């Protein structure tokens, strides 16, 4: 019931995303038809709320065409498939979604927008381009992934064959491009890679949804995000918290009533989301 209401709210505040939110399939079930696991739905709600906030500021967020054709992919994280044969459940993980589609989904932002002549992308639970560049700079891989990431720049990908996919990311400070091998691998399956980026991809804003994280953990996590993603500039940060414990380390914080006890459990969020979106735009 809670998820149904949340779903309806998503559509009402972000009508441009109606088709993907309403889409029903085995893949969407773990978001909308699950018992006890509300995290994904809250993440999607935050995405819709962000879109709505930008919209109220006169900035239109667009849904990449990919998701009109294949709405299932909207529900996948922006993470390259990394399951490997040594891990349990591998044989059973021959998925309903073809591997090549999962690669495309990982490399495609959920929403894009433009402001003052520059392109921006909004990703969910991962930013593979950043991860690849990070590895290219000789760093160990990181596993930390904010729930929503707003980056400056635009990405593209093109399927070259059953095994190869080309990708690129372009932003003000440079670009990177390369070819990935379409396979489940423990490591990053990079065939080739070129970059003119001096630092890494600029991240303007991050949103973390936390159903029950305590303030100490949330702060630790934010520190990690900032050190990984905020080398050149600190992204504006928003914490959406299911608990009343405040975490002042975040620039913005909204409380979301997980029990749906207040008459409008999300009111707090839309006001804060607007403030967050304004801060992000101001920092651009």
């Amino acid at each position, binding site marked *: 019931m809670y998820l149904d209401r949340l779903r309806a709210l998503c559509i009402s505040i972000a009508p441009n995303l109606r088709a993907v939110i309403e889409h029903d399939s085995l893949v969407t079930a773990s978001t909308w038809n699950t018992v006890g696991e509300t995290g994904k739905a809250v993440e999607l709600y935050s995405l819709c709320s962000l879109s709505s906030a930008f919209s109220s500021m006169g900035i239109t967020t667009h849904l990449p065409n990919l998701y009109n054709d294949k709405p299932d992919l909207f529900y996948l994280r922006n993470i390259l498939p990394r399951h490997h*044969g040594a891990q349990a*459940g*591998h*044989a*059973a993980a021959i998925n309903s979604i073809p591997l090549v589609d999962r690669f495309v989904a990982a490399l495609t932002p959920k929403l894009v927008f433009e402001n003052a002549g520059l392109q921006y992308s909004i990703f969910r639970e991962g930013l593979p381009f950043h991860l690849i560049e990070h590895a*290219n700079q000789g760093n160990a891989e990181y596993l930390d992934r904010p729930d929503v990431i707003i980056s400056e720049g635009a990405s593209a990908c093109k399927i070259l064959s059953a095994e190869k996919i080309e990708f690129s990311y372009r932003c003000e400070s440079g670009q990177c491009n390369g070819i990935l091998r379409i396979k489940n691998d*423990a*490591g990053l399956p990079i065939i080739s*890679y070129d970059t003119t980026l001096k630092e890494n991809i600029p991240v303007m804003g991050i949103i973390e949804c936390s159903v029950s994280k305590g303030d100490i953990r949330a702060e630790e996590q934010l520190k990690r995000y900032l050190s990984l993603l905020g080398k050149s500039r600190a992204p504006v940060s928003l914490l959406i918290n299911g608990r009343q414990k405040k975490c002042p380390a975040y620039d913005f914080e909204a409380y979301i009533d997980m029990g749906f006890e207040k008459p409008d459990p999300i009111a707090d969020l839309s006001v804060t989301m607007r403030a967050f979106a304004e801060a992000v735009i101001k920092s651009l």
Partner: protein
Amino acid sequence: MASHMGVQTLATSRNSQVEFLVHYIIERALKKVTGMGHVADAHVSSQEHYSSEIASDVWDHLATGVQKNGRKFQWWCQTTCYKGNGTGMPEPNKTYEVRETLVEGITIRDLVNQKDDCDVRTLHFTVGDSNYTYQWFLSLKSASYDKSFYIGKGGLDVFTLLANALQGTVTESAKAEKLEQCIREMNEIGSFISHTTDELCAWLINEGMSKSHLADSQWQLVNKEYQDHAGKWPEFSKLKGSDIKGRTNRFLFNADTQEADALIPKAAAKILEKKPFLSAALSAVADWSAFEEKIRTLCDAATDIEDFTRKLWTMPAPYHLLTRRVILRIHTGDAIAYVQDRDVQGVSEHNLYAGIHSEKQVREICSKIVADLATAKILSKQHLRDGIFAHGKKIINQARWFEAKNGTELKPSFEYAEMAVQAAGFKVVTLAAAKFKAIGYHSEIASENVRPYTNLKAILNKDGKIIAILKAKFFRIQEFPRRCKEEAFVGLTLKYKYENGVFSARHDIPIIMFVDMAEDCSPPEYAVKRLISFGWDVVFSTKELVAHLHSIDQTK
């Protein structure tokens, strides 16, 4: 909870590098033979999916191309890594992976025979120290794959060499350059690459991609079973799991249960009997202060932390079952090294918690534990005691939860099946009692010593005649395909024998697999069909089992 599964992360990056190495070798060999005019349009891809009515397997590599004679070819390749360990013993866990590899090799034989316009072959790469594998695997692998390659040498840690060679590389092109450098320098990695490339080329050019006739013969056995069962498969849409395991666990650990089946509490009682840790854990947690008192007394009597640790390790039954688990985990929330990697001679995962160890073993184990405790700044016996008070209950509860669901000695499904069969008027006895030797044909193909299969029971009718062999197991949906593969190997090798170069039925006794699974589990059809095609009669409930036994009995 600190677990033994953390080593998986190390395994995956090692395997990933090895996959790249093998890919590189295959590509290099194909380039060579292309240059010599033997092959055209060569291409190598990874993680190729082979599927048939009885298969859905991922193969590490697939090489394709066209031969000089105009015929196409396909090389399906699998790689198995042997990392070895300090005790010099084979890895017992590896048995499962090798069974899967062999079953995959036999199953794809269908393709080898099917394609008229294409020569299909199977290749296997063993990487690491092959001393760490059961030697019968090497023989049987040669008999199940068309060509086998060995990348490694006794006593050599090829994985570390490879990791060092590839260090700092991110892209495949950079990795390839590093391997080329290895070849130029002719270091160990370079020699392996060069040698294996030459072997692969020679197999193509000089041996005409020779086939394994034993592999084809094994496939014929499977094909016959498959044909015999075609059209008589289980009604998959109507299947419902018995969930003996789940119901027994729930009965053991939940206060209120609506369980109406009288055999479930009996199975639960048998589990507690066989796994004294579970009942000890329940008692200790129920009366924690009494347990703390024992620990306190022991601490007072100990001279230092080493002594305290040894005393904890050797507490009389059942307490050592608790204390060993606690002190192994207390220093970390992360992965604990697999016990066989701790390199203490004679200590294995099977006797770590329950076994009686020699003084020397206890000393070795405990000094490793004390070293681990030091990393968590637990330096004095009082620190350790306080740590046990603070975290012991949680650790024991977690272990109890985990081990009730896992662990090879617990078989509620089998206990239940036995009781149900006995209630129906049959006798269930050990294979020894029935004078049935469960040897698999792999012991006849290999010249090495192979132990007979255990985990099987014999079913006798009223006249004391053996009418079936039974195995019962719980299949989790995530692991269903893998379990079916492992058991497929057991089935085929048990049912048939190899004598004078020919396979034939070993006896006419059916082998029955009672598949226990969650009620709502929908097993993949191909996995069950594979199990059946490799010789098992498969049943999903004890009702079905008993009915099947009666029908077998009547025909005798």
